[in-house]
């Protein structure tokens, strides 16, 4: 199963007709699972509160979904090479603090600082690859550094997001709320790049079978640096979008995003090993986690259980996936 995704499109000769059909059905079910869970969740919300089914309602519910979706994509890019970024939440907080202070007061300096952040991520990828370090520990250390930087910039919550950023996130699009449009575009763009382009296959291959990719003449160092730099870029976007929505920043504002983004990737069908990830699934997973919180307020359960509901949905979806996988192992 280490083969890159496109291989699976070919019919597998070793399976007989009925078995092949069962395997395909299981695969189809597994791919549909993230969308299915989101639809069930949305359906429940609409039944409980029909007024949510409007432009306004969707806008309110999904307001904070875009930064989380961007963070999830960033995490997914790191997971593609079997690493894990435990510093993502503090990184996004740091970016938000930069945007609310430096970027607002000195736009040029602020932009340079944000580019520098992406550079740091690229260096991190290089360091982890060259010294063969465990990414969990390195990003753990980085999380201290980002929080420290954020505290230095903004010792107390405050600052102010640049006007253009605040205007940008409040754009009113026709028919569908801006948040939905951005999420759809994000999912499609990353999908086309990572799942359909040659480069994307190579990047995922580095997670699936690094040796094969290296033997084929690709530089693993360049692949890792590329993925980390891309993750850093999406992290920067997430922080900018977040601070545009909240208008002011705080050094701890996005710490939750680290765990939420990991949960979103897994919810969307990603796996920790083998470069098996799904950009569309990751965005759907992020939306599911955001809506899980809204659902509770609609069925009048105390907000105490909001985080718990996210955990419960995670467990539920994973249980369903295990059931689907069993279907694949024992074809009827």
């Amino acid at each position, binding site marked *: 199963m280490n083969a890159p995704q496109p291989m699976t499109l070919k019919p597998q000769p070793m399976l007989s007709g009925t078995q092949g059909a069962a395997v395909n059905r299981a695969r189809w079910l597994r791919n549909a699972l993230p969308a299915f869970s989101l639809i069930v969740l949305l359906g429940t919300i609409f039944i409980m509160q029909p007024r949510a089914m409007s432009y306004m309602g969707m806008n309110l519910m999904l307001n904070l979904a875009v930064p989380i979706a961007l963070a999830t994509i960033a995490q997914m890019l790191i997971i593609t090479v079997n690493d*894990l970024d*435990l510093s993502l939440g503090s990184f996004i907080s740091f970016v938000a603090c930069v945007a609310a202070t430096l970027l607002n007061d000195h736009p040029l300096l602020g932009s340079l600082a944000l580019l520098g952040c992406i550079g740091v991520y690229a260096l991190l990828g290089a*360091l982890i690859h060259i*010294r*063969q*370090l*465990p990414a*969990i*520990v*390195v990003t*753990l*250390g*980085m*999380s*201290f*550094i*980002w*929080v*420290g*930087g*954020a*505290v*230095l*910039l903004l*010792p107390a919550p405050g600052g102010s997001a640049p006007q253009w950023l605040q205007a940008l996130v409040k754009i009113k699009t026709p028919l569908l709320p801006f948040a939905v449009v951005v999420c759809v575009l994000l999912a499609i763009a990353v999908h086309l790049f990572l799942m359909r382009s040659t480069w994307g296959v190579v990047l995922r291959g580095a997670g699936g079978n690094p040796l094969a990719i290296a033997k084929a003449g690709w530089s693993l160092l360049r692949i890792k640096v590329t993925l980390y730099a891309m993750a850093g870029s999406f992290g920067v976007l997430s922080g900018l979008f977040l601070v545009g929505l909240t208008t002011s920043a705080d050094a701890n504002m996005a710490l939750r995003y680290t*765990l939420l983004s*990991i*949960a979103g990737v*897994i919810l969307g069908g990603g796996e*920790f090993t083998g470069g098996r990830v799904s950009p569309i699934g990751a965005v759907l997973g992020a939306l599911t986690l955001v809506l899980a919180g809204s659902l509770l307020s609609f069925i009048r359960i*105390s907000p*105490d*259980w*909001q*985080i*718990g*509901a*996210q*955990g*419960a949905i*995670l*467990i539920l979806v*994973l*249980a369903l996936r*295990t059931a689907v*996988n069993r279907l694949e192992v024992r074809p009827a």
Partner: protein
Amino acid sequence: MNLSLQLNRVRSKPWLWSFLAALLVWLATLAFTRGEGAGALTSGALAFSAFFVIVGVGQMFVITTGPGNIDLSIPANIALSGAVGMKLMEGQDSLIAVGVAGVLAVGVLIGCANYALIRVLRIPPIIATLSASFLLQSMAIAYGRSVRIAPPELFYQFSTGRLLGIPYLALAVALLTVVAGYVLSRTLYGRWTLAVGQNMRAAELAGVRVERVRWATYVLSAVFASVCGVLLAGFSGGASLSMGDEYLLASIAVVVIGGTSVAGGFSNVPGLWGAALFLYLLVSMLNTFGASAGVRLILTGVIIIAVIAAVSGRKSQRSL
């Protein structure tokens, strides 16, 4: 010849480095204050390090069982256990035993739940403990919502008391680490844990009951985190929701800086103490130097990365 042999033997004990670093930081702090407050600094370091070490021991066992094994539910567990313990004790000395028993039960239950998720859903431990921690966090919020209950007097005295300047807690945890070291190197369970971490498939073929080892390990980690939670609540005069937050990163940092292999299969018990003392003393040194919170955090991060880069560099040299 003899000297270089001894030097090699010293070098092969990675935990010495963390103690050396802790000692250097301690000396630097005292040099700055001209020896003032040496007793208070040492005793404070021992007390706070004890908490890091308790969770560190559990996390170390988990990390030892192989790559991908990590317990992310520790902070939520600490918050919940602190609340459960304080509520069961109701501030009365006579109910301390009930509270401690309740907390241990919570720990065992959480460990079993973590393992059940890993086993039944066949998901990576990171995700299993992550989703469990979401649930636990909510439970802690819902359960601990009521007013802050102060710990019983006797319990408070135990968690803050000192014997000749050494906190009771540090003594108890020192004993615990000795036991943990013994368990790891001399008992069947310990040897099995190391074997599973080095090569799970080989261990299984050699007759190690892999699943039983993993179950015991996750229960152990959860119980240690629970104990840390109730002691922390006693130490700080009541449970609070956020008191476990720093222990996720701290537990991993203590294990890694202490010389335990992140890839699993090799643990280092004394290193936990060295690393915990080092981390605490580093922060208090930067405090005495008048560094701001931001600078403190940045330096902590830089040191964690520097240590891990140096440590894994050493290993690759040895294997060549």
